[in-house]
């Protein structure tokens, strides 16, 4: 809560990180933006105007946001209870859960997506279970559907939801829950009025992580849904790699960047406001 005006020398510790980011992200991004806007010679917004006036672009933006939101929600629904359990667990149980969450990170995305291809096939495990318990009348294919993409992507990103929430939950004084209990609060009331509000900063961080990764994923949609379905990230990749349309690629990349930065900044601001009370 230091007032503006006095410079805190500890901030200098961030200089290497800032330089690094400028080098590997900042400069290429500027180059991208330049390519997109300077394509006609003089700087112009024409590429953006062109992009936004094309109806297909809006479908792509819609796809990107919808998939990212659904993946984020699924990660939150799966990740929050896991984080709660992890924070409550002790000793060996905690170590095992932690390993189960972190170890899959060392398995490449391609391998995971390949595994999901098998699971989501018409004769895959999911289909067999669903028909087996009678929820589906006949076997269905989840592979190459949006649902399959959301499920597969959530699986890859869920650790990035669990870990920030867990690290916040772990720091909450267990006496607070006890105090609430002795004041007459039921377990459900305690959860919604004590644990949940105090863990909001972790939730917001997890949302920022997962949303930005899900909005910009490229390999997973390629493997799980294919060309028919385009997001800003897959379109960027196709533009550069297959269509050799650098201008379109730069434009979609910048739009995606603005989208994710907006979400991350909004969640950081939210986290700061909520964090101010925790």
């Amino acid at each position, binding site marked *: 809560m230091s007032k503006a005006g006095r410079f805190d020398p500890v901030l200098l510790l961030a200089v290497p990180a800032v330089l690094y980011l400028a080098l590997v992200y900042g400069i290429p991004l500027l180059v991208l933006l330049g390519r997109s806007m300077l394509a006609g010679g003089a700087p112009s917004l024409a590429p953006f105007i062109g992009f936004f006036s094309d109806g297909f672009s809006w479908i792509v933006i819609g796809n990107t946001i919808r998939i990212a939101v659904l993946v984020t929600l699924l990660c939150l629904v799966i990740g929050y209870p896991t984080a709660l359990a992890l924070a409550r667990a002790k000793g060996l149980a905690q170590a095992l859960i932690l390993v189960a969450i972190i170890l899959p990170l060392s398995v490449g995305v391609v391998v995971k997506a390949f595994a999901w291809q098998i699971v989501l096939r018409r004769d895959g495990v999911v289909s067999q279970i669903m028909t087996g318990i009678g929820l589906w009348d006949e076997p269905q294919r989840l592979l190459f559907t949006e649902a399959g993409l959301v499920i597969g992507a959530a699986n890859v990103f869920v650790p990035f939801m669990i870990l920030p929430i867990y690290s916040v939950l772990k720091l909450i004084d267990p006496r*607070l829950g*006890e*105090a609430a*209990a*002795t*004041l*007459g*609060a039921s377990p459900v009331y305690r959860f919604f*009025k004590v644990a949940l509000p105090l863990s909001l900063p972790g939730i917001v961080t997890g949302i920022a992580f997962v949303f930005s990764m899900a909005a910009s994923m490229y390999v997973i949609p390629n493997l799980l849904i294919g060309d028919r379905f385009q997001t800003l990230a897959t379109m960027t990749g196709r533009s550069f790699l297959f269509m050799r349309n650098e201008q379109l690629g730069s434009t979609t990349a910048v739009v995606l960047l603005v989208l994710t930065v907006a979400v991350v900044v909004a969640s950081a601001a939210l986290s700061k406001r909520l964090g101010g*009370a925790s």
Partner: protein
Amino acid sequence: MKSGFLSVSGAAKTFGAATVLDGVDLSMGRGEFISLLGPSGCGKTTLLRIVAGLMTPDQGKVALDGEDITRRPPHRRDVSVVFQNYALFPHLSVAENVAFGLKARGAAKDAIAPAVTKYLGLVQMSAFAGRSIKALSGGQQQRVAVARALAVGPKLLLLDEPFSALDRKLREAMQIDLKRILREVGTTAIFVTHDQDEALTMSDRIAVMHRGRIEQLGTPAEIYHSPATPFALGFVGLSTQLPGKVVRAADGMVEIETAAGPIRARANFIPGSAVLVGVRPERIAIGEAKANRIEAALADAAFQGARVQLHFAAPAGGQILAEAPILPAQAGPGTRLDLSWDVEDTLVYPAPDLAA
């Protein structure tokens, strides 16, 4: 008499190899105020947690208002707690903390605000209602914690050293206020404290705890004037203590041989028993000729305002301590003084087992 509103029987708790509660029995009447007094680590907080339902005893029972609540969860006990570390909700304001319990119990909206105002006023924190908890000092947090626990109007209030962070003046004011509120509302309370003056002034009864047991449960006067064990004698108030050996016993009287001289007391021991003699300092007269008389060399005098505390050189395993309004004339370090007290004021205990 009015016992049995809260009754703890045979409560035992072990953590690993450590026995933290070793069969605690406690019975208190409605509206009664009991202090738990005992050294750090003797199990006070553990006992409170068991009564509050935050911990289940390995053995024993807890009953409140005629119902067995041993396994009832804390939110259905109507027992509120002022925690040793306050445990205020950091994401809520001072007023919201105090309102928490009422809201959780679904109290009517228009009943909550007046209660918050009332209890914040009681702890002299009205001016801080809108503040964040993080912007409070330790003592202010303590007072909010007390208001929060009182606001729900619990059947039983447990306070774990609630005033330890307050300065003396504020603490005394809070003691009086708390007693007044509890009396008005008729709340039963258990009050943990390290401060024996606090326990002596506030309590209807005091439970002296030692190593997971209640060694003595009695009124402050009983605890002070007739401590049941050497531990109670030593822990509550000051005392002269002399180890000795019973040499004669007859008709409820014993004569004890000590390194400071022979002492007579009303007690029943067989000759040859090793005992500990205790005397409260205000019972000891200087330069008079009461029944039990010893001579001791002054070692130190501690000025305490209204009184002077006199420490004397004592034989091994003992201590000699007296009080006087003023330092006796011409007394200085090494001066030998006559100390005497009545037979009735002589306490005798079996010699404490040093190994225990």
